[in-house]
C-alpha cells in the first residue's frame, strides 16, 4: 500500500467521496432521528401499565398492541439490515410502487433503528425512579400525562449515551445499504476501487473517512450530554430568606422540645 496513491485517489475522486459522505450522513442522521421517534412511541407504549380499573376492552387492546410491538422488535433485531433492505425494497418495488432508492434506504434504516431504540427507551424508562411515577399519579395525573411529562423526558436523558451510540452505529452500518445501490460512502468506494484497481488504498481512505465521521459525532454527542447534565451538578444552597429563617428557627425550637 502506498500513501502516495491514497492522496492521488483522494485528489482525483474527492467529488465521489463527498457525495458518498453526504448520502451516508443523510441516511444515518434521518434514520437515527426517525428511529428515535419510533422508539419513543414503541418503548413508551410498551412501558405503560394500565390501571386495575381500566376496562376489559382497553386491557385486551393493550395486550394485542404489546404483542405486535414485541414481534416488530424481535423481527427487526433478529434479521440483518442488509436482508431487510433488499427484501423490503423489492417487495414494495415489485408489488406496490416504483419507489426512490433513497426513500427505501431511509425507511429501512429507520424501522431497523426503531426496534433498537424501543428497547433503549424502555430501559431508560425503567431506570426512572418509580417514586416519580407515584408522585405524579398521587397528584391525579393520568398514566399518559405522567409518561409524557415526567417519565419520558427523564428516560431520554438516561438513555442519551445509548441513543448517541445508535447514531455512530448507523453511520457505519448504513454501508450495508449499498446493496440497494444508493450512493452512500461504501457504494462510492466500490466504484472508485473498481475504476482504479487500487483496492487497498481506496478502502484505506474509506476507513479513514468513516473514522473521522464517527469521531466527530462522538465529540458532538459528548458535548450535548454534558449540556444535558449541566443543571444537576450544583451543590446545595442554604436558604437565608427571612421567612425561611423563621421556619427553620421554629423548626429548631421545635426539635429542642
Amino acid at each position, binding site marked *: 500500500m502506498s500513501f502516495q496513491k491514497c492522496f492521488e485517489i483522494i485528489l482525483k475522486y474527492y467529488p465521489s467521496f463527498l457525495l458518498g459522505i453526504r448520502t451516508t450522513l443523510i441516511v444515518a442522521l434521518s434514520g437515527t432521528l426517525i428511529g428515535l421517534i419510533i422508539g419513543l412511541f414503541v418503548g413508551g407504549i410498551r412501558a405503560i401499565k394500565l390501571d386495575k380499573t381500566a376496562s376489559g376492552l382497553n386491557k385486551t387492546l393493550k395486550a394485542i398492541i404489546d404483542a405486535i410491538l414485541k414481534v416488530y422488535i424481535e423481527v427487526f433485531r433478529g434479521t440483518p439490515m442488509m436482508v431487510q433492505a433488499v427484501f423490503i425494497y423489492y417487495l414494495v418495488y415489485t408489488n406496490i410502487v416504483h419507489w426512490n432508492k433513497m426513500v427505501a434506504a431511509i425507511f429501512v434504516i429507520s424501522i431497523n433503528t426503531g426496534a433498537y431504540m424501543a428497547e433503549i427507551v424502555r430501559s431508560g424508562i425503567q431506570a426512572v425512579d418509580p417514586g416519580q411515577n407515584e*408522585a405524579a399519579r398521587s397528584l391525579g395525573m393520568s398514566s399518559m400525562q405522567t409518561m409524557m411529562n415526567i417519565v419520558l423526558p427523564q428516560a431520554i436523558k438516561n438513555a442519551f449515551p445509548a441513543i448517541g451510540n445508535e447514531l455512530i452505529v448507523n453511520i457505519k452500518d448504513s454501508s450495508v445499504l449499498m446493496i440497494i445501490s444508493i450512493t452512500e460512502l461504501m457504494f462510492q468506494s466500490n466504484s472508485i476501487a473498481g475504476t482504479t484497481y487500487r483496492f487497498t488504498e481506496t478502502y484505506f481512505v474509506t476507513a479513514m473517512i468513516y473514522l473521522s465521521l464517527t469521531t466527530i459525532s462522538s465529540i458532538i454527542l459528548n458535548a450535548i450530554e454534558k449540556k444535558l447534565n449541566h443543571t444537576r451538578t450544583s451543590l446545595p444552597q442554604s436558604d437565608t430568606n427571612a421567612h425561611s429563617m423563621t421556619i427553620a428557627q421554629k423548626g429548631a425550637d*421545635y426539635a429542642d422540645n
Partner: protein
Amino acid sequence: MPIIEVNNVRKSFDKLGVLSDISFTVEKGEVVCLIGPSGSGKSTMLRCINLLEDIDEGQIVVLGQDINKIKDINAYRKQVGMVFQQFNLFANMNVIENCILAQVKVLKKDRKSAEETAMEQLKKVGMGDFVYAYPSTLSGGQKQRVAIARALCMNPEILLFDEPTSALDPEMVGEVLSVIKDLANEDMTMIVVTHEMGFAKDVADKVIFMDDGLIVEEGKPEQIFNNPKNERTRQFLSRIL
C-alpha cells in the same frame, strides 16, 4: 360523619400478611399520627388510602365514597395529597414547574393562576426564593417543603404524609415538622406516618400504634404516650422515648 373510614381492611403481598383487620376513622380537620415499628404496615395503610396499593378485603370510605369502587381514580387522587419519604420531586423540572404541572394538567387551570397558587404555597413553606432551582440543588428539608407545597397547590381535602422526615438529617427535621404543624393549625385533615414521637405528642389529635399489621392501641396522644394501656405499646415507646 368521618372523612376517612377504614373498615376491617386486610392486605397481603403474596403470602406475607401486611395488614390484618385494620379499622379506624379520621374526622374532618383531625391530625392522626400512625406510629409503630418498621414493617408494621403503617406506610402500606397510607398507600392504600391513596390507591397506590389495593386492599384484599374490607372497605375504605373517603369523602363518602368507597374508594375501591371508584371509576375515575385521578379525580379521587386530586382530593388526597401525598408527601413521600423520598420527596419524589420531578427531577426534570424546577421548583415552580413541579408545583404548576398538575394544576394545569389535572385541575385544568390556566398557567397564570397556577403560577400564582404555586408562588403562594411556596412562600408559605419558605421556599419563595428557590422557585427556579432544580430539585438536585436543594437540601432534603427544602425538597420536602417543596413537595408539601406541590401537594397543597391541588387544594386537597386530605394530606397523607409517609414518613416525611425519615430521610432527613436531624437539623432539617424541624423545618419540615414546623410546616406540617402550621397546616395542622389551619385544620387540614392529615394522616402522618412518623417516627417523630415529640411531633406526634404535640400535634396529633389521635395517635394510632400499629404492630405486625394490627392496631394495638389508639387514643389521645397524652394517653398513648403517658399512660399506654398495652404492654407492646409500652415496650415500643420505652425504647424510643
